[in-house]
């Protein structure tokens, strides 16, 4: 039994993958809790999809995926902001229009004859292909996100709990929302190499949803979410190793198991 747990991590590839999922859990766990408390899940999912063209362009020209992801997120954010400026359309429509268009553009670029066959990697990530440099970059970004969320937890809580009085207590709700979206963009950039454009969101939102369902205090919820995200990462790697299935997908599915299980737990107050 112990061998079943430890044998997969004998090689450098799996060790790097393990380190990658653990550092990502550090950012995704708490970030997801705040995203859900701010009811920003839709924008969060969309942002990761909207950066596909940036990723594809990076893959086409051989630039680091991190750079492509950063450019893609920036493009998506600008597009959404521009469309959302029209009051008749509003934010949701802006997100839907921009993200669909950008995702289509990315798919078109990726499926063109000139493109290297890496679309699957962009969409679903490649935890086993993570290099030491990728790991260092993702680690630095993830730790930065974790520290920023911990430092900003009081204003974030004030604005999410009750917006009207937040300024008189020392928080700026608009700044909190913007900061959260920036951290989401950074996390997306950090996680895309390992988990891919379509799957990384599972590690952001699913552990947080489970933790919010069972936890009654903010600190408990945040710690539970990190623990569940880390657990999902480790379990996903093990499952993928032993069952020989795609790694990113296995991690995403393992993250979703506690979220569905938590739905069966009655909410306590």
């Amino acid at each position, binding site marked *: 039994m112990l061998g079943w747990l430890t044998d997969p991590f004998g090689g450098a590839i799996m060790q790097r993958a393990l380190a990658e999922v653990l550092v990502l859990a550090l950012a995704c766990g708490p970030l997801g809790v705040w995203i859900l*408390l701010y009811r920003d899940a839709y924008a969060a999912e969309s942002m990761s999809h909207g950066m596909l063209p940036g990723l594809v362009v990076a893959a086409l020209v051989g630039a680091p995926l991190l750079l492509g992801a950063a450019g893609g997120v920036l493009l998506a954010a600008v597009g959404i902001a521009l469309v959302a400026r029209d009051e008749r359309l509003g934010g949701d429509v802006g997100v839907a229009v921009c993200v669909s268009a950008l995702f289509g553009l990315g798919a078109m670029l990726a499926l063109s004859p000139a493109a290297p066959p890496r679309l699957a990697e962009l969409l679903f990530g490649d935890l086993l292909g993570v290099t030491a440099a990728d790991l260092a970059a993702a680690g630095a970004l993830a730790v930065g996100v974790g520290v920023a969320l911990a*430092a*900003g937890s*009081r*204003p974030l*809580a*004030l604005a*999410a*709990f*009750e*917006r*009207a*009085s937040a*300024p*008189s*207590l*020392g*928080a700026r709700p608009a700044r909190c929302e913007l900061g959260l979206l920036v951290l989401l963009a950074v996390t997306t950039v950090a996680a895309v190499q390992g988990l891919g454009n379509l799957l990384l969101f599972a590690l952001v939102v699913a552990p947080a949803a489970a933790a*919010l369902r069972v*936890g*009654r*205090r*903010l600190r*408990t*919820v945040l710690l539970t979410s990190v623990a569940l995200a880390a657990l999902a990462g480790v379990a996903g790697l093990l499952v993928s190793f032993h069952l020989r299935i795609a790694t990113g997908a296995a991690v995403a599915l393992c993250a979703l198991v506690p979220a569905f299980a938590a739905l069966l737990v009655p909410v306590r*107050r």
Partner: protein
Amino acid sequence: MSAVRVAALSGGYRPGQDAVRDVTFAAGPGQVVGVLGPNGGGKTTLFRALLGELPVQRGEIALAGAPAYVPQTERARLDFPVSALDVALMGAYGRTPWYRRLGRREREAARGALDRVGLAAVADETFGGLSGGQRQRVLLARALVQDAPVLLLDEPLSGVDGVSAAGIERVFGELRDEGRTLLVATHDVHQAASWDRALCLHGRQVAFGKPGETLTPAVLRATYGAELIVLEGGDAAVGVGHHAH
């Protein structure tokens, strides 16, 4: 000396569309001011101006210090994972730098504030699981922890149970004795009549002064318009439903 002084205040949420006009009044330390008016009459807009958050604003505001704001309880998230004590502790966030943990002093202040509003026994209960009146008292406790010279309260007595209403009114009395100034938005004319000053708003200032001289049928009619019901014997009551958010 006034703790709150407002002169010729007008303003709103967009340029050219004043939500409230021509407000001029002053309140001293230890005074409770009832702020009366129909829904949309400008009570919340006045509070936002006093908090320094109104986008468009003309006129003058002078305050003895940054005010605390007590919102209506239904504005707060019921699904937020916090205890009553956590909410009261939020009152100390503003004066605690982000790198400093909240210490024993803050916790004692928060517990003390919950005790003052009669909720020491439920300090560790989840906020969302408390009754509406208890939640309103927790939000009042948070403002007590804030320790502000001026408190703005948005209909703190609307729709709360009798025990909570009595507890809130008792704390009003204590705050008055401590020399703090309270502005209380309310629909209850009888309640306002028992306080020190009344400010009547209907998009503009209708009247301000001692309740006995201010809350006349004519002023109330101008304040509430069609929402006013005059009872037998000349007593005025206000037929305003609860805020629908």
